């Protein structure tokens, strides 16, 4: 934690609201993202009990599984989600541009989809769903629907790509807000989207702490609160009694409304919060380097789509060599992200100035003939400054 972080936390405490840690927005937010809200059933982390999704605040579709512990019911719900998600996720893949880099020429999609979720826990759940679905057999005794397997491949990709520093294909709003705002909250409290939002925009005259304390219990998924789960339990039990082992949609659909009515207010609460937070950040000017990282994201998306079309598979466990190379790539991306943010944004430079890793001043004179020689040469002429 830098002295700037500490200073801004102190000011956030004094002023009762969050302080910006960046002048610009360092992540792209596209105009029509694929927003997703996921809910799991109690502590069952590998299946979705309820899903809310849409491309704008007013466009919300809700699908519930009934009892997601039953594979057929869970997959029936996921199939509906896959039929919405897959075409929207895949549509950008066919529109390509050719990029020349040195001798090499390669294609990349002109646009890429962006998935927006409330928090990192939802990103992890997307990855877990992907891990479960991506490699299911689509033939044999109990075939999985093709669309669901395809959905799994996309989610697995997103779950992996989410660990790339500065990537923008999956935006977890808690992560986005934490990187752009300092609040007088403990780190663990800053994982709640409701609490973060409360500190950023409290009502007039109310301290962010009090407003956050009032709102932090509003879960936005994927893990339900204990009280919500207690209200759900009798509904699921009744659902299971009435369906008497049946899983055919004709029978099930008429039994789902009570469970959907349970989830609807929960999803709506998080939905409204998600879009408000997203729109507030989207109104802030984008930093210049975002464009380069978006190009990298488009390249990763293109490579994934080409791989999926060829029915490509990933090892479930990396070889030591793969792991080492991945770690190297992630570290490079992190170093580059830090450098780009510092170059783009004068607020991001302050911690470096305080640590004496950067200097601040005005260039007064440039000696074009005087180069630093040797292996560590920067290739830049030496400059005088004060």
């Amino acid at each position, binding site marked *: 934690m830098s002295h700037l972080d500490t200073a801004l936390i102190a000011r956030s405490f004094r002023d009762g609201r969050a302080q910006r840690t960046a002048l610009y927005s360092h992540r792209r937010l596209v105009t029509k993202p694929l927003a997703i809200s996921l809910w799991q059933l109690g502590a069952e982390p590998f299946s979705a009990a309820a899903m809310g999704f849409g491309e704008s605040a007013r466009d919300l579709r809700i699908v519930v599984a009934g009892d997601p512990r039953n594979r057929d019911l869970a997959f029936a719900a996921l199939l509906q989600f896959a039929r919405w998600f897959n075409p929207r996720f895949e549509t950008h893949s066919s529109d390509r541009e050719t990029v020349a880099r040195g001798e090499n020429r390669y294609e990349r999609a002109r646009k890429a989809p962006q998935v927006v979720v409330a928090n990192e826990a939802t990103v992890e759940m997307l990855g877990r769903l992907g891990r479960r679905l991506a490699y299911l057999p689509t033939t044999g005794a109990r075939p999985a629907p093709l669309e669901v397997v395809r959905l799994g491949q996309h989610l697995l990709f997103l779950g992996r790509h989410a660990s790339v520093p500065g990537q923008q294909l999956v935006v977890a709003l808690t992560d986005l807000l934490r990187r752009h705002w300092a609040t007088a909250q403990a780190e663990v409290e800053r994982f709640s989207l409701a609490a973060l939002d409360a500190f950023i925009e409290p009502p007039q005259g109310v301290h962010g702490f009090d407003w956050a304390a009032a709102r932090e219990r509003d879960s936005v998924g994927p893990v339900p609160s204990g009280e919500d789960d207690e209200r759900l339990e009798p509904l699921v039990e009744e659902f299971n009694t009435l369906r008497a082992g049946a899983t055919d949609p004709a029978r099930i659909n008429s039994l789902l409304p009570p469970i959907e009515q349970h989830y609807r207010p929960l999803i709506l609460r998080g939905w409204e919060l998600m879009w408000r937070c997203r729109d507030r950040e989207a109104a802030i*000017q984008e930093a210049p380097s975002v464009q380069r990282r978006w190009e990298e994201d488009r390249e990763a998306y293109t490579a994934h789509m080409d791989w999926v079309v060829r029915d490509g598979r990933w090892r479930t466990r990396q070889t030591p060599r793969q792991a080492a190379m991945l770690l190297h790539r992630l570290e490079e991306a992190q170093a580059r992200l830090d450098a780009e943010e510092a170059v783009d944004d004068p607020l991001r430079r302050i911690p470096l100035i305080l640590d004496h890793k950067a200097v601040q001043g005005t260039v007064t004179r440039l000696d074009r003939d005087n180069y630093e020689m040797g292996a560590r040469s920067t290739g830049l002429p030496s400059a005088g400054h004060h």
Partner: protein
Amino acid sequence: MARIATVLARVPDAQDIADNVPANVNFGSVADATVEAARRIDALHDIAERVGTSYSPACLATCGNALFCRARAFRAGALCLTGPETVRGLPGVRSIGRAAELTDGAPATAEEAPVAAHLAKAGRLYDAVVRTSPASRARRSA
């Protein structure tokens, strides 16, 4: 084994803790469900005043009373409110509110001096950027 023995030796003895509690401090009036809620909370505050609390954000995960202690830490402006990093980052500073004053360049006491210089510089650099940059109010046109 030696390490475990050291750790175990440091676990406070329950009897020592009980002996240190001031006389007539107990949860009787707090636990009395027949008394109105506000009076019971006052009684809890009274105990906290006399015995003290030791809040840290880690309490939120395990203790039913954590929100009570957190609210007290907030009212007092205690450094522990925002976690151990803040406590470590502000040696010699008595409260978060005081740290905010130091970011504005308030005169520091001898104890605060080492960290006050950093806070004042951070505050000064931050204010200079926010004041002068057009981007601080810029909004994307689209």
